[in-house]
């Protein structure tokens, strides 16, 4: 997804001369170096200093620019959190945070670099918007909307190539879920890479005679309440799937709404409140409960609960 991000950021820079990019010296990791190559006068490397990265971006935002700050996802959510809370969320600075290497996608660098709590942390902040694109097409479609969006946005980016799900006809809108597969027995709600695995799981479930609706929840906040309530009412059971802790992220957000509005069984697929470990991406996802089979299993449990 990195090259796609670099391409999309350059395209945005071409379309809008108020867009600037800031980096905490990982531009060759997150591919914001492509923006630097295209628009060197609008690119600023503040060094390995993530708190300063966000604050300098705040200065640009208050001066009428649209700053895209780039570093690893976990560093935004943990090291620079107070800057984000005070100036982006409370102070309404229009800064866009591009969280590279999100989830477990920087698998070989290990748990110090994995980002498994960022969505929960960001989601708890008033005025924050959170976007998790399902593939590179979604990323390219959503990035200009993020630039136009009034207020701070946090976007998760995957370090690795993810299956391409969409074509040019895909037209996501921030805050609106996309139904990517229809079904009546349960609904699988997913974001990011897990969307492709959820579609695979839905296909496998047909072998057991189960049809699953699959929702692309590319915006975790403001989340599409109506789509979740409809899913609960129409299908009676929900599985959430995310590359994140099951605490406080997509699963938490869906469970909160379902509990309040239309109580049906909800099963959350994600990390079970633990750190992962170093290793190949697929192997870690498998070992920590985020394989296609885990989604199928969760669906079966949800269906079982629904019958009772």
């Amino acid at each position: 997804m990195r090259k796609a991000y670099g391409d999309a950021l350059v395209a945005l820079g071409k379309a809008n001369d108020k867009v600037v990019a800031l980096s905490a010296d990982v531009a060759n990791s997150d591919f914001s170096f492509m923006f630097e190559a295209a628009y060197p006068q609008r690119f600023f490397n503040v060094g390995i200093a993530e708190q300063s990265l966000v604050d300098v971006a705040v200065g640009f935002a208050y001066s009428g620019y649209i700053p895209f700050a780039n570093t690893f996802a976990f560093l935004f959510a943990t090291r620079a959190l107070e800057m984000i809370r005070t100036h982006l969320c409370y102070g309404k600075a229009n800064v866009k945070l591009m969280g590279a290497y999100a989830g477990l996608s920087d698998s070989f660098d290990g748990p110090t670099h994995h980002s498994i709590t960022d969505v929960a942390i960001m989601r708890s902040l008033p005025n924050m918007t959170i976007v998790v694109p399902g593939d590179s097409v979604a990323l390219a479609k959503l990035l200009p909307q993020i630039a136009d969006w009034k207020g701070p946005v946090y976007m998760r980016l995957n370090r690795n190539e993810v299956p391409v799900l969409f074509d040019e006809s895909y037209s996501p809108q921030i805050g609106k879920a996309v139904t990517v597969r229809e079904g009546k027995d349960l609904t699988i709600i997913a974001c990011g890479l897990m969307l492709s695995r959820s579609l695979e799981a839905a296909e496998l479930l047909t072998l057991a005679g189960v049809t699953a609706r699959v929702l692309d929840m590319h915006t975790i906040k403001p989340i599409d309440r109506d789509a979740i309530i409809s899913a609960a009412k129409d299908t009676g059971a929900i599985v959430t799937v995310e590359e994140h802790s099951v605490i406080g992220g997509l699963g938490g957000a869906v469970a909160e709404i379902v509990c309040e509005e239309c109580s049906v069984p909800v099963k959350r697929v994600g990390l079970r409140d633990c750190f992962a470990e170093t290793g190949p991406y697929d192997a870690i996802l498998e070992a920590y409960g985020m394989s296609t089979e885990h989604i199928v299993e969760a669906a079966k449990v949800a269906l079982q609960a629904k019958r009772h």
Partner: protein
Amino acid sequence: MHYHTEKLVRDLTIRALKYRIDVLRMVKNHQTGHIGGAFSAAEILTSLYFHHMKLDPSRPDWQERDRLLFSKGHACAMLYAVLAHRGFFDPNLLLTFRSFNSSLQGHPDPAKTPGVEIAAGPLGHGIAIGTGMALALRMGGVKPSSQSAPSARSATARVYVVVGDGEINAGVIWEGMMSAAKYRLGNLTVILDYNGIQQTGATADVMPTEPIADKWAAFGWHVQEIHGHNVLEVLDALDRADEVHARPSVIIARTVKGKGVSFMEYDHRWHGAPPNEEQFASAVAELEEEIAKWQS
């Protein structure tokens, strides 16, 4: 450099004394707020807002304005008093400070108070945010109009940041200092309100920062040291800082926490404590006596 008249110095000094009385009223009224650090910043703020900075109180969002980032947000009672008397909002609002429904929050909120540029209170943000603003202004985000007031100094807007000395314990201060130097931000001036006292004691004990001028110079900044309650020194230093090109500037203003009230000076217990009636009356009497001296 400009010649500053005695009349100007007297005016700015008297304002600083009067606004200290406002701060006392504000903090006493709801028995909450920070006096010590507000008093140490008084002359710095009157010099900036009533003389040095290019601004228009009727247009707080004016693109060409100079920006003042009040990073030591806890001392905002003085900022509010200065902004009100400069015409940004009705001085009658000052007594609503820290009360429910007030536009004057406990710590500054740019959305609620005209003239406030950034949220502050969590310490350390001003220099890095000021760096971003100074970069943005230099990029031409703001183009001077032909109606700009003629001035000896550059027509482009400048960024001023007031930071406290306890505040520079924070790492992000030094991150911002490095970035400002890297980008050679001649349009950025930091004023360090060096009152020597932080919440629980002397800065020298809590977290030694000396030799602060050498440290700042080693980071690539233009450095001046002044007496921060001497208005003439403040004005001269601000002028000199404006003339520095291709380097950010810091003015280390040696100040006194609680300046102007004998029993509050140099005492960290007046960092965040409100006065009772007796203390209030005594403090106001001291300040009024000083005002009378300057007026005679």
